[in-house]
Structure formats: C-alpha cells, structure tokens
C-alpha cells in the first residue's frame, strides 16, 4: 500500500519538537527536556514511524539510534505492540529486522482491491510447492530425489524451478550420488516471506526431532501429515 504510506508520512506529527533533520547533528535522541512519560511516547512514535516509512525490515541497531541511551528498547517494542493490538496491522520481527504487516485475516479484503499492494507473506504456492519448500527448510540440504521420496510422489523440475524463480530456495552443494544432483537450501528471502527470524524458528522442529524425522538417514514414515498440519498458519500477510 505505497499510497497510504505516503499519505501518513505527509501528515506531520502534531508535536513538532524535533529540530529539522537537515544535519544528523541536530537530531535530539535523548529528549532530556521532556518529562519521562512524554519522552517515552515520543520514542514510541519515532520508532513506529521509522518502521512504517521504511521499504524493508529495519534492524534493531538502526532503530536504537532514534531513542535515548537509557531507553529499554525491548520494553519500547512491547509497548508499541500493545498499542497496535486493536489495529489491523502488527509489528513483526522478520529476517533480523522489524516491519509493520497487516494481520493475516485481512488478506482477502486487500486482495479484492487488486491494487499493487505487495504481498509480504509467501507468494501463492500450490500444495506441492508448499510441501517442497517446507521439506527443504527442515531437511536442507535436500536433493530432488530425497524430496520425492519424502513426498511420496515425483517432485518435478518445474516445482523446483518455480521456487528458485521466487528466490525461496537456492542450489547448494551437489550430492555425492549418481548424477551429482544439486541439493537445495532455503534463502534469506524464505525467512523474510514466512516471517521467521532464523531457521530455528521453524514450527514444531522439536516435535519432529523427538520423533526422529529429521535424522540423516531418510525416514520411511510419511511426513505429509506433519508438514501439512501447519498450512493454516501460512495465510498470506500483506504489507
């Protein structure tokens, strides 16, 4: 929703205490002349505004420059999240930075408009593609043969090609089996669109481990049930 963003940027904050930022030198991060409560509100506003206006996730380090040194940044983020609870969008940590995203249940409403709102969540994937990318995330590096064995059906080159085209996976090392097939790994973009901070945030990884499904020797068990169980959570997010 770029247009909406621009709109909110233009309407200047009511409280224009901040000196104009022509030189960074003039920017007052500490706000020591304000009382404690007002200072906190101002910091919250700044951080949220910066995240709102940014085209990509903003790192914590960049954001800490906007607030005073004695500000507990985690508490600040918590307060902003509390404020946003009744709003249709949310502050999320993705791929190492903060971003504002609409709540998944409004995905349909946004899609009806069919303007150029950018889907921040996973692109529309077929069930096979979703299964494939999920399996790669858990089992990486995994070859097409391994994935096919896991899925119980042939994972075609087209599926792999489409996922590669979407930059969700990349070709990793070549497996030492006949034909030296590529083993695939997930990319940073994958973390971003699925809203994961790191691969260790994959859902149910402990349960899969306890059941021995992530062991190196290929399991005979059928993973479909487990891998599809989370499909409900993967509704699109929009930004």
């Amino acid at each position, binding site marked *: 929703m770029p247009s909406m963003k621009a709109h909110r940027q233009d309407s200047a904050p009511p409280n224009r205490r901040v000196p104009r930022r022509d030189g960074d030198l003039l920017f007052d991060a500490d706000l020591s002349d304000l009382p404690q409560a007002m200072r906190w509100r101002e910091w919250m506003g700044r951080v949220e505004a910066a995240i709102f206006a940014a085209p990509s996730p903003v790192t*914590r380090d960049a954001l800490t420059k906007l607030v005073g040194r004695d500000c507990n940044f985690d508490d600040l983020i918590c307060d902003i999240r509390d404020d946003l609870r009744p709003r249709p969008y949310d502050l999320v940590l993705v791929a*190492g930075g903060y971003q504002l995203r609409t709540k998944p249940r409004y995905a349909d409403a946004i899609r009806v408009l069919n303007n150029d709102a950018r889907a921040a969540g996973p692109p529309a994937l077929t069930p096979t593609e979703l299964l494939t990318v999920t399996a790669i995330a858990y089992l990486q*590096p995994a070859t097409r043969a391994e994935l096919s064995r896991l899925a119980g059906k042939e994972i075609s080159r087209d599926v792999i090609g489409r996922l590669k085209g979407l930059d969700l996976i990349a*070709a990793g*090392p*070549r497996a*030492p089996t006949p034909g030296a097939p590529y083993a695939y790994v997930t*990319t940073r973009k994958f973390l971003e669109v699925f809203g994961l901070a790191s691969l260790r945030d994959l859902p149910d990884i402990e349960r899969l481990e306890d059941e021995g499904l992530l062991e190196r020797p290929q399991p005979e068990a059928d993973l479909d049930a487990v891998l599809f169980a989370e499909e409900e959570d993967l509704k699109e997010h929009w930004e």
Partner: protein
Amino acid sequence: MPRWAKGDAGAQGRRQDDALGGAGDAQFFAGAALALLDHILHSGPDVSSAGKSSAEPPFAGALRQRLALRAATACARIARLREDEPALRDAEHLASFDAALTPGGRLHRLWRLFATRPARLDAPFMRAAADCLEVPPHIDCEALAVLVRESLTTENPLNAATRVSTAALHILDDAPQIDAEIFALWLADLVLARRLGWAAPLPLLATTISHPSMRVANGRRPHPGDPDWSLSVARAYARAAQEAYALAGELSRRSAMLSSVAPKLRAKKAARVVDLLLADDCVSPARAAKTAGLSDRAARRLFDRLVALGAVRELSGRANFRLYGL
C-alpha cells in the same frame, strides 16, 4: 603424551563436586596438554626437533582443518542441524564455488576461517566470522575487536579465553542464543592462540565443550554465561588439547610417510598435490586437477597411486565422489 599429563584419575574422571580442587586440576592438565601441543606447533619442518623452531610443522594445515571439521560437527549438533561429519565434509569439498552454503556449511566456514584468512584481531575479521553465522547485521564488530585486544593483556591465556567468551555474550545480545554461544567459543580459541603465540588459531574449545563428560549440574552442556564457566573452559581445553595432540601425532606419522613416497611419484606437478594434501583435511581429485593443472584422469591416477603406496587414505568410503586426505 606422558601419563601424568593426561589426568585420567584426575579432572577427567572426577565429577566436579570439589570445585576448587577440580579447577586447579583442570587448569594443570589444560596447561600440560597445551604445552605439549605448543611444542608440536613449533616443531618446524622436522618433527624430531620439536619446540626448537619457530615455524609450524608441514601438516599444520591438515591439523587445523581437521579440527575445524570436528568443531563444525560439534557446533552443528549444538545448533541441532541435520548435517553430520561426512555431510559437512562433502558440502565443503564437493560444492562448486558458487553454490549456496548449507546451514552447517556456514558453521564449517566459520572454523575454516582460522586457516583460510590471517587471524587479525580487527573488525573486518570479526565481520567475516559474523557473516558465517548470519547473526544480525548490526552486531558491533568494532566492539568485539576491542574486546579481543583487551583480553590479550590478561596474564593467564586460559583466563583470557574465559573472559573473552563471557564478555562477548553481552555484545552478541541480539543474536540467537546458539549463534552467540558458537561465536564466543570461536573468540576464545582466537584469543588463546594469540596469547600462546601460534601462527594461526586451532579450533579447540568447540570440539569438546559439548562432550557428555563436560556436562555441568543438571546435565546441561556448559554455557559461557555459567558461574563456573572458567572451570568448564579449563576442562574442555585439557581434553581438546589432548585429542589435538593425539591427532597431531597421527598426522605427523602420515605426513612423514607422504613425504617419504613423494620422490617416487612420477606425475607432473605431484609436489603441488602433496602440498594441498598437507594443507587441508581432504582434497577432491577435481580440486587437485584444477590447482596443479593436471587432467582429471591424471589426478585420479595420482591419488590411486598414493593410496597404493599407503601415503593417503580415501576418507568418504565411496566408490565415486572420492575425497582423499592424510
């Protein structure tokens, strides 16, 4: 290694109920084992003149990279990745140069940094390490470099390693906990090696810190934030240095064997391949061919001949996609 330095009846076997005595014992055995290892690392071209030279032995590269593989395997287990030692070795040595790294491959690269880049204690080197771990990009590498340089002033090398690993956790606050822990182990090895005057660090601490015998109270593996971390560091270094010493002994015999058969090799540029074998954990025929300017077939024949002469081993156990090493 002399029996008294192994401490079988001492720190290794004993539970650490008596913390003070345990700490003294552990530090003693760590010191003894590190001294012996230091001797090897200063043995120069001929191992029989151990400790008398300032140069590293010819097999130092192989020792360093094999320990890097062990460290990466241990870290992959800590990070609960699916990749084990053979998988990590394959991913490193069979991948083409533009292949995307696997999660375990990144950890492996972190430990291989000790050999592939001069270990300078500055921000760019810290950055390179941070990139391997994919910690958040805003980690303050300059602060890490300053911390490392400050630790060098600590009298006792073991204490310096302990201090740097504990203090680094505060700088790595934002990183996922496991990545911060692995980074701390890496920094400890870096500082220890610098304090001992080694040409490049050896991956040691990470190879043993997650070993079952190192577990602290309630069966957890030691963590740099623990109150008794210094005791854990001493015990882990004692064990790691003993294992590295044993590995160095084995590699020394194998490298002597390799240099004794080297004159019998008639392949062109065989000397170059011998150098490669001494400098890395293992070498694929394709890489040997590329580096030495041999044809693929010539490289394969050269390795077959080396195996027949008993100078190198095939490490993967496969009939194809073979990897050869000391």
